[in-house]
């Protein structure tokens, strides 16, 4: 009788938090726009993981539904983000986010 191995919620949430922080750190320290977008994906997925873990813990489907939503939003975000990236590259000749600082006061 193999007892189902249950991963405790704390572990799942901890993993989500660590992923979120890694993503955030990536957004803050990376200058390449592509890598920033990738970091944003990591943050979104961290959120999704937190939803899944919480949904599994309480045994309801809401968490998975939220994850589906996040996936679709992420897809939209990436397509818009890549469009902006192309424009930025064309305009500034580089993918350095710090170059796009014309809005400073």
């Amino acid at each position, binding site marked *: 009788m193999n007892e189902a191995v249950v991963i405790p919620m704390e572990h799942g949430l901890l993993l989500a938090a660590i992923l979120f922080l890694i993503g*955030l750190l990536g*957004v*803050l*320290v990376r*200058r390449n726009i592509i890598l920033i977008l990738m970091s944003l994906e990591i943050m979104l997925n961290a959120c999704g993981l937190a939803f899944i873990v919480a949904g599994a813990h309480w045994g309801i489907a809401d968490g998975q539904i939220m994850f589906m939503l996040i996936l679709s939003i992420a897809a939209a975000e990436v397509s818009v983000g890549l469009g902006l990236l192309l424009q930025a590259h064309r305009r500034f000749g580089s993918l350095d*986010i*710090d170059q*796009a*600082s*014309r*809005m*400073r*006061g």
Partner: protein
Amino acid sequence: MADYIYLIPLLPLIGFLLLFATLGKLPKALVAVVGVGSVASSAILVLLTSVEFLTLREPLSNTLYTWINVGGFSPLVSFYVDGLTLTMLSVITGVGLLIHIYSSLFMLDDKDYSRFFSYMNLFVSAMLVLVLADNLLLLFVGWEGVGLCSYLLVGFWHEDSANGAAARKAFIVTRVGDTAMAIGMFLLFVHLGTLDFAPMTAAAISQWPEGSPTLTIACLLLLGGAVGKSAQLPLQIWLPDAMAGPTPVSALIHAATMVTAGVYLIARTHEIFLLSPFALNTVATVGAATLLMAAFTAITQHDIKRILAYSTISQIGYMFLALGVGAWASSIFHLMTHAFFKALLFLAAGAVIYSLHHEHNIFKMGGLRKKLPVAFWSFLIGSAALAALPFTSGFYSKDAILLAAYENAWQGPLLWAIGLLGALLTSIYSFRLVFIVFFGEVKTEPSQPAGWLMAAPLLVLCLLALVGGFIVIPVMDVFPAATGPAHDGLIAIITPAVPIIGVAIAYLIFLSHSVDISTWTNSKMGKTLNRFWFSHWAMDWFYDTFIVKPYAWMANVNRMDIVDWCYNFTADVIRLLHELTIQSQTGQLRTYAGVMVLGLATIVAIALFSGGGTAP
């Protein structure tokens, strides 16, 4: 009925609008037709009105509409014609028409012919509103209107900045008086609740005992307006400079009509002034002081128009003297005769100036008697009337004023003596002018004698100046009946004799040269006195030193407006905050993200640690 009265001021206004809208586009002949025609049609309407008034023998009124209606204050736009108004209407449209006809030739060479006539029409319209108004507020509209036209016409030749300065001086000095008058109006309204002449007078009589302080203050404030407009002490300094305008303007505005508006104002509100003996005595004092000061000044001047300007100030002084001693009818009578002979003198002076290519200095003229006969006879008749020689128009009015002054209970003989000295000086300076300009040797050859359009008004005015004394003005119902002069024989003989003595003195000094005054005028005291009088008792110097210069100094010191500092301080603080916060806007997306994370973390932390157990 009298429902056409509103057309009297409206027609010149239409003339103004027509000329002003088409400025300079119409041919000069058409401009003259419009400009003169509008005043002529007003004059015809005034004639109709006077026929109606004299048959009905009661005041006419014509209410148009309620101007504003707010909180119990509802002044009407309403016109009112009684004997006093009718006299003024006749003078304004009659003399105004003659001067317009004269101007149509006098100004013909001016490039701004159309602008000149549009301003003149506007002036006539405003002046008619002033005398037709049946409440003080509408009168004030006309009052300010004529002030504006005076400004525009004094500065008519604005290419010369001196003319602009004269126009500004006229405007600002009269504005001082107008402010006093406006405050007087507010005071009357606050206490009496209305500005319509008839109810206002009735309320004043029932509400205030004779000599009450509020009433006296209100009267003195109205007097302030009157002395500003009528160029009396202490605000008379603007009138001599106003001679910078074209000569017909000087004749119409600064001699015949506008400057007598102050006399009209006091005559119109005479029932209120009667309640305040102090105010009346002040009126008489102002008049007496002004007439003497201006007469002394006129003797020393050598600009032909300035002599006439000072004599205008002096003659209006007589009118104020008459008002102050309660001789209302004599004052208005003198106003009318003065309009005739002073308009005549100015227009004749204009004819002389026109023929001598804008020469104003009388010592460069001479012997013009044969060359300019029309101007000479006009000047002779005008000066005779001005000097009040017997049987001219000025004689009847000035004689009546002097005798009424003698009868006055307060300082009567003194006022009479001042008036008499003034009359002596008047005849000296007016015949000095005649003798120097028209007799002796020819100094400047005149050219281009005036055409009939200029001569005809002069002839009509000559006639009026001669026989104007026999006109009976219909003001018996307006003013309280004067007590019959019971003066003794000697006074009645001295008064008319004095002007003749003056003419004789002028003859001896300036024509036959049998009396030599050069040793006296060349003495130290004579020179000082001459300079003192020439500068009009140093009044311009006085105002310049004690008002204009300190004001200019203050304005200069206060160049960085002190009041502005308060507002600038607020602005500076906000600008400083702006400079500080601007540093946070780096344009670095990553910084923004970092700050957002920090802020979010702070908020979450606060929510967690302060909310404590309530979190789910």
